[in-house]
C-alpha cells in the first residue's frame, strides 16, 4: 500500500492498516501529534478504527517554536 505522508510517498507491506498501525510503524507512538487524512482530522481516539487505503494523503504535525 502506498501512502503520501507529509508530501512523500511511502509504501507499507500490510493490509488492514489503521492510523494506529501507521503511527507505530513510523516510531511515533507516545509523541504529541495530530493527523489529517485526505484533508480531514483523524481524532486520536479513532486512530485504531481508521483504516487507511492505497493513495491516502496524510499530514502528521506537531508543535514547534514560532512567533
Amino acid at each position: 500500500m502506498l501512502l503520501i505522508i507529509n508530501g512523500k510517498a511511502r509504501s507499507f507491506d500490510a493490509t488492514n492498516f489503521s492510523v494506529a498501525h501507521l503511527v507505530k510503524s513510523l516510531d511515533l507512538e507516545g509523541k504529541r501529534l495530530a493527523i489529517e487524512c485526505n484533508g480531514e482530522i483523524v481524532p486520536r481516539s479513532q486512530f485504531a478504527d481508521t483504516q487507511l487505503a492505497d493513495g491516502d494523503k496524510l499530514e502528521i504535525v506537531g508543535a514547534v517554536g514560532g512567533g
Partner: protein
Amino acid sequence: MSDLLKIADKTYHSRLLVGTGKYQDFAQTRAAIDASGAEIITVAIRRTNIGQTAGEPSLLDFLPPEEFTYLPNTAGCYSADEAVRTLRLARELLDGHKLVKLEVLGDPNTLYPNMIETIAAAKTLVKDGFDVMVYCSDDPIIAKQLEEIGCCAVMPLASLIGSGMGILNPWNLQIIIANANIPVLVDAGVGTASDAAIAMELGCQGVLMNTAIAAARDPVLMAGAMKKAVEAGRDAYLAGRMPKKLYSASPSSPTAGLIA
C-alpha cells in the same frame, strides 16, 4: 485591585505574549520566556520529521502545555483554507484547545497580512468554535469588522513582522483602540523596550513579540526589559499622562521664599 488581561473569559497577569521561534536552543527559549513573565506563548504547527526524531526533545518538553497557555499560530499560511486546516490540527494536537492566533500572509517579502483571506478564515473559525486572536493590518475598519465577526482580540501590526521598526502609525492604533470592545494587542514590529512601552501607553491591552527578544544580543536580558516596559507602559496609561504643552508657566518649585 489587580489589573488583569482578559481574553475569551480567561484572565492573565502578564500583558506580554511571546513567541517561541528563532532561539538558539530550547534551554534559551525557556530562560527567555521565564524572564519575560509571559503566560501566553505562541507555537507553530509543522510537519513532524519522520524517522529522525525518536527520543529527541521537543519544544513541549521545555514548555509544558500545563504551565503555559499555548497560542498556536498559522504562520506561513497564505490562504484561508490552509489557516483553517492548520488550526484544526492544532486543536486536535492540543486536546481541544480553542484559543488560536490567526494570521494569513499576503506576500513572502513583507509578510504583510492578506486581510481578505484573514476575514474569510476568521468567519469559518469563529463558526467552528475557536477563540480567535487575529493578526491584522492597522486599518480601523478591518479591525472593527474582525470584532463584528466574533474574534476575541485584534492584533494590528506595529510594523512588519521581524522588522523591529517600532510603532509606525500610533494614530491608527489609537483609533482602533478607541473603537474596540475587545482587547487590542500590538503584534509584530516591536524592536526594543520603548516600543513596547509606547504600545501600552497608547492603551493596548497587551503586546505580542518574538524577534525583538530572540534576536537581541542577550535574549534573556531583553525578555526582562520587555516585561518591565509592558508593565511601565500599562501603569503610565492607567495613571494618565500630563497634557503636553509647548512650555510651562507653572514651575515645580515654590515661587516664594527665594533669597534676595
